[in-house]
């Protein structure tokens, strides 16, 4: 067989997702409707987008804990600006994306210039972004703008009444763009190189500083975009929104087959990681009998099972490889 072993983790991820879906379907036949599939894309759009940025960061051996707060900040920023000024949403979007990108770049610069671990710098970034969101408003602010209503109701009705929404499509586009950046550009190669080892990457001619700044800027950009999508999804800005999303995103990236220490993984895998997380959520809602605490326990256990399955699958293939 001529499957490149690099692809095994990715194939394992996709395989596990499909098996998971099959099991859910056998239990709840309603799971296999375009409605559920459309929901899966729409509900996880913001997570997918932010996970794409997180994938790039993790591929480089870093981590970005600030994204959840940045999404919340974005929502508040958009809502407050649309409430208090007469700017067009598109202008606000542009402004926001510039801010979040610069914010990410600044964190990247600190990480590089101070030789501080990304975990800590982005942790401070996480406090800061949410703190600024609080300072803008502590209230949740509704967005009522005709342009927004248009965005919210932009969808394509699939056969079977499922909706393929604008934001769902936006997520798919982001994944595609992320995949191209990671796997088809020199910048992407530099990202993988950093993940393989900073010292070596430097000796191979990677401009470590510039690459680090760009990586976190990209993550900031994706977090901003995700914030926009989230504000379209909820139609409001709320400083307490998306607490802990960074951890969900990291989990999705890891389930997607990317190695947390960096240097190996696929952006497409992350899409399936996100969908897997969504599947777990949907399954639990369909089940509908779990108490609050059992919900938490079951989510953790399912996460564990997915990771163990993936590890087992990889070990099996590695074993097969060794024997040939």
């Amino acid at each position, binding site marked *: 067989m001529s499957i490149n072993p690099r692809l095994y983790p990715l194939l394992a991820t996709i395989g596990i997702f499909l098996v998971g879906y099959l099991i859910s379907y056998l239990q709840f036949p309603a799971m296999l409707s375009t409605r559920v599939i459309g929901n899966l894309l729409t509900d996880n759009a913001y997570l997918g987008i932010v996970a794409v940025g997180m994938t790039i960061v993790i591929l480089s051996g870093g981590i970005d804990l600030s994204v959840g707060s940045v999404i919340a900040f974005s929502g508040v920023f958009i809502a407050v600006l649309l409430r208090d000024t007469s700017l067009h949403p598109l202008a606000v979007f542009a402004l926001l994306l510039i801010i979040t990108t610069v914010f990410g770049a600044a964190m990247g610069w600190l990480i590089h210039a101070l030789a501080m671990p990304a975990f800590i710098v982005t942790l401070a970034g996480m406090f800061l972004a949410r703190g600024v969101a609080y300072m803008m408003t502590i209230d949740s602010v509704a967005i009522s703008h005709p342009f927004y209503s248009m965005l919210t109701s932009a969808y394509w009705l699939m056969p079977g009444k499922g909706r393929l929404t604008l934001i769902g499509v936006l997520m798919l586009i982001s994944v595609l763009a992320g995949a191209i950046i990671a796997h*088809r550009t020199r910048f992407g*190669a530099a990202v993988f*190189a950093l993940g393989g080892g900073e010292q*070596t990457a430097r000796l*191979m001619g990677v*401009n470590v500083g510039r690459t680090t700044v760009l990586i976190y800027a990209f993550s900031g950009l994706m977090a901003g975009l995700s914030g926009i999508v989230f504000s379209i999804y909820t139609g409001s800005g709320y400083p307490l929104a998306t607490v802990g999303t960074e951890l969900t995103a990291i989990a999705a990236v890891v389930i997607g087959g990317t190695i947390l220490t960096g*240097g190996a993984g696929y952006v497409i895998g992350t899409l399936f990681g996100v969908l897997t997380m969504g599947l777990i959520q949907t399954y639990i809602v369909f089940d509908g009998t779990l108490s609050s605490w059992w919900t938490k326990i079951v989510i953790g256990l399912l996460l564990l099972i997915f990771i163990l399955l993936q590890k087992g699958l990889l070990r099996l293939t590695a074993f097969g490889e060794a024997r040939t």
Partner: protein
Amino acid sequence: MLLSIRSLSKEFPGTKALQGVDFDLAAGEVHALLGENGAGKSTLIKCLTGAYRRDAGEILLDGAPIDPASTAEAQALGIGTVYQEVNLLPNLTVAQNLTFGREPRRFGMVDRKAQSAKARELLAQYGIDIDVERDLGAYSVAIRQIVAIARAVEISGKVLILDEPTASLDAAEVKMLFSIVRKLREQGLGIIFVSHFLDQVFELSDRLTVLRNGRKIVTERTRDIDRLRLISYMLGRELEETAREQRTASNSKDQKPMLRFEQLGCKGVIEPFNLEVGKGEVIGLAGLLGSGRTETAELIFGVRSASTGAAEDDTGKISHGNPREAIAAGFGFTPEDRKVDGIVAELSVRENIILALQARRGWAAPLSRAEQERLAEHYIRLLDIRTSSADKPVGELSGGNQQKVVLARWLAMNPRFLILDEPTRGIDVGAHAEILRLINEITREGMAVLLISSELDELVAACDRVIVVRDRRHVAQLSGERITSEAIVHAIAQPGAASHTEAA
């Protein structure tokens, strides 16, 4: 001059690595850079390519001063480098490594097809045909070394720097490399060549420069200098050739073997083999790269678990299923990749030396600080480890000195059976002789040694018995007078030779 270095200095905390070094490289020459471990060769190269910032001095390329702040800049100037520690990315494919930073692009995107084609084409020059879409990490050290060389050659428009490129290559590959280097020389490149193999230096280089303790000692034409004088330049003294003398015949001939391994093997890794180890015996393992020598050692030391076989000594069966059991059974093992498996970089020289000892005593019985210091001082003196203090992090030592620290760790354990996997890789002539002398000495006290080496001379000089490994099988055994370079080469190359020597 193509490249001139004027009074270059570089200081690390506690070490003056380079002091006012001058160096000239002409177009169309191979210039060897020589010196003991820690002399400053790698540091000079790193200052030249922007990996380190120099403290003082200037560098002229084609007469114009250059000041590369990063290796990327040096590459852009046409300086290609193979660094001492393999400097490629195991998590990228071979093709990505080869074309890194200069990937062929179409519509702004990396063109995978062209990339692979180019990689295959580059490797073809070295007679290598592998799947370039696989991760580099899946290939052996030798392949990685060649990929690094191919990449550096491809980048170098003017200057090619090779820092110990042949350390993990075998004869055929070295030959291939040399022919490529000669071709580049004819094309007018300047080539800097660092090696501890003096034969290779004499074979390849036009001129040579010797560094000692961070200072330049001499630059001469290679053909004007002889081996002994070169060595005395490097060491600052004459080398006693004691180690060259044949080993005093082993005294274990008629005694019962101390250890016996029977039908030890692991599916897909190495065929089952038998091995008897006598007290005070030095057994050599010879073979090509990838023949399974390291695997043999790993099986014995329990790094890999054996699927068949058993070990026993005169008290009965011994278990060695993992390194700790092997250590308890009195084994020791210095792995071939010292950076990955040997040193604990941020711990001090002292802590690295006592690590195994402490691990055996258990956490609750710490060695006293005084005892630790005594041990460290002892081995630093015994092995002539060049370090400013016993408390220096071992990662800051030069490569050869790191190797000596790992050796010291095991000597401190005083095992009865010590496995040395390429113990002299990257070690200078002086230390090389030192280590061989040391092997001689410790075995005289009864320690048995399994010596894995790619240097046949070394095996010939040190061993009582040499086992030849080919294609993951132990195929032949030579002993006593029969151990000669020719015989080993013969046994490695000739399938038929096996039965012949074994019969003898």
